């Protein structure tokens, strides 16, 4: 089946981004395809390239970034959520005259329409939420 996933919980303080990653891995392993992963609300923090994790803890941001690149997934960070939380790609950083961009590899910043599009083009949609 064609599956899309939405994540809304804060990666560093809630389990949902981790659960969503395990779910996506199991879905691919079971032969399904993932149309899109959409990060909304606090979950956009998964796209930060500036996180530093203690050596004895899992780096969830890095794990997601690697997973997306390895499987060439379409991973969208909601632009409205991202701007409010200080997650910027190079284009947004220039547009808003901010000194730096911090979007990690693998993620795209785009609008809520991408999520509606995912709903229309997927057999199943699953949310992992705050």
């Amino acid at each position, binding site marked *: 089946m064609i599956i899309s996933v*939405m994540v*809304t919980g804060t990666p560093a303080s809630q389990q949902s981004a981790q659960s969503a990653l395990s779910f996506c891995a199991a879905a691919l392993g079971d032969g399904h395809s993932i149309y899109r992963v959409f990060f*909304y*609300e606090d979950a956009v923090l998964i796209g930060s390239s500036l996180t530093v994790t203690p050596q004895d803890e899992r780096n969830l941001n890095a794990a997601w970034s690697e997973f997306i690149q390895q499987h060439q997934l379409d991973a969208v960070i909601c632009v*409205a*959520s991202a701007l409010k939380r200080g997650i910027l790609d190079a284009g947004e950083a220039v547009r808003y005259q901010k000194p730096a961009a911090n979007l990690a590899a693998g993620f795209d910043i785009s*609008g*809520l*329409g991408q*999520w*509606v*599009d995912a*709903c*229309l083009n997927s057999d199943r*949609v699953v*949310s992992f*939420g*705050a």
Partner: protein
Amino acid sequence: MKTLTFLARQAPFGSSSAKACLDMVLASAVFEQQVNYVFLDDGVWQLVRGHAPDGIGAKNTLAALQALELYGVDNVYALDESMTERQLTQAHLQIPVRLCTPAELGAMINASDVVTAL
């Protein structure tokens, strides 16, 4: 056309969930999908008229609720039990909504293509 059902379950202002749900509803309406917008649990507080969130630095979303019709979002519901438990009646609300029972909501959910609870 798909049927997208949104469950607004959180109180306004204490968290950003109410606004996040509204934004998804409006985006879905722009794509001309069949939208059900259901308020339940603390979400029914979102409908109460007279919000004045200036004092807590928040934005009033009641105007956006009134614009739902313009966006073609006609199916706006509130769960009757959630209203009753909070001593709310239609007279307290900013916009008219249809009341539904838990069983009716269950059937609406079953008949939807995608259900999003925020």
